[in-house]
């Protein structure tokens, strides 16, 4: 009974953390998307220099643990440059930059999986290469990327828990705070786990809907193969 009362009293506070968690994930995914697409394009279509730079970026952000990056950016880079970026936005930026590296690999794979004839057909109609990429390649590649992107969402959501080390007031930080005071770790962290699970479920359902809404008629769900 005692446990339930503690959980009941703490739950509004912890639920509030979900909003912060969702905020981090949405902003990080958006940043990852905005950087991931140009990174993927640079890797597929870029010259030697562009490919090198993109490769270096991906290598760095895939190679360095997120925990190290959080400290590096928040306590290191941002504070030494006197940038007034709080813990929440630092979390978004670090997770977003990392996600960009992974997302670029998803997009790159999708672009490379398109038949080369698609690009050729665009060119043959007099489209500039930029136009072929924008109007022909990306709309198809992004659709193909959605399943991988959904995967990236669920990974990012779980990675966001680590942002509590900066004091970002998300689910993990709030649960940890209450638990260290009440010593009801088991019940409280079960609640936290349940919250992560529910957010994952909601997000994946939403993305699945999006995938269906955007799928090209005549293709099997998931839209990978031509007939």
């Amino acid at each position, binding site marked *: 009974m005692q446990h339930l009362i503690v959980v009941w009293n703490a739950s509004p506070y912890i639920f509030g953390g979900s909003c912060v968690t969702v905020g981090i994930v949405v902003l990080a995914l958006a940043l990852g998307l905005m950087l991931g697409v140009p990174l993927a394009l640079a890797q597929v279509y870029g010259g030697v220099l562009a490919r090198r730079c993109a490769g270096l970026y991906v290598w760095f952000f895939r190679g360095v643990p997120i925990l190290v990056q959080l400290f590096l950016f928040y306590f290191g880079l941002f504070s030494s440059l006197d940038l007034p970026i709080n813990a929440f936005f630092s979390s978004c930026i670090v997770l977003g930059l990392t996600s960009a590296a992974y997302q670029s690999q998803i997009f790159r794979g999708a672009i490379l999986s398109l038949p080369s004839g698609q690009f050729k057909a665009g060119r*043959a*109609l007099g*489209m500039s290469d930029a136009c072929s990429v924008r109007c022909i390649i990306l709309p198809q590649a992004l659709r193909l990327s959605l399943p991988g992107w959904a995967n990236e969402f669920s990974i990012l959501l779980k990675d966001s828990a680590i942002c509590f080390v900066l004091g970002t007031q998300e689910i993990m930080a709030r649960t940890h705070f209450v638990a260290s005071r009440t010593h009801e770790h088991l019940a409280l962290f079960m609640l936290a786990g349940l919250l992560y699970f529910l957010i994952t479920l909601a997000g994946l359902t939403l993305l699945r809907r999006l995938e269906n809404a955007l799928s*090209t*008629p*005549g293709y099997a769900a998931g839209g990978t193969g031509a*007939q």
Partner: protein
Amino acid sequence: MMETPVLCIENITLTLGGRKILDQVCLDIQRGELKVLIGPSGAGKSSLLQCINHLVRPDSGIIRLEGEKLDAANTRALCSFRTHVGMIFQDFNLFDHLSAEENVAIALRKVRGFPRRAALDRALEELGRVGLARYAALYPAQLSGGQKQRVAIARALAMDPKVILLDEPTSALDPELVGEVLAVIRELAKAGMTMLMATHQMDFARALANEILFMEHGVIVERGTPEELLRPDAVTRTRDFCAKLVV
């Protein structure tokens, strides 16, 4: 005096991986002519057609459209050249994420700057020309091979090309679908469209070609009217090749 050819190709040479794929190929096409490229698989027909609009960059050679030399180093000039040279691929290459109508309309919008409405109207008109107005809303995956190729033809026609290059437009089709595509091409030929077509459809070539070009190992080894190359007593590579096709 001869009219300026619509398309004139001089000494196109292409080397890939150290191998000569095309060797000093020359040809020209007058307005309203249909020239047919034949030859065994691997002869370089696709390579030649793709070199003409620089989808594959030839090592050397000159390409003229209505007498005007193509400057392929100039991107704008190259894009503009390509809008005037239609291309039909063996495997259609329709844009899989767009409906038939949008497939035809997209280049009108993005290249020719048509407003969306006008582009779709024009697309419907072109689809009507190839007998597919009813299929405008369907996506490539919902169309048969023959229908896909006809959409591809409509897509090329919508750009008002001066010449159309067709790379074995019926080779990827089930036999019963070949006829509908050839019928569309036949109509185009009758309407005076200038075309260069690689094909193995010898009956079609015999009936409609102004000239047959027989290609082997990257060289045009024979050229002449269908009567010259295919009459029963002719001793030509072309006739040899056709005899093998029939078997």
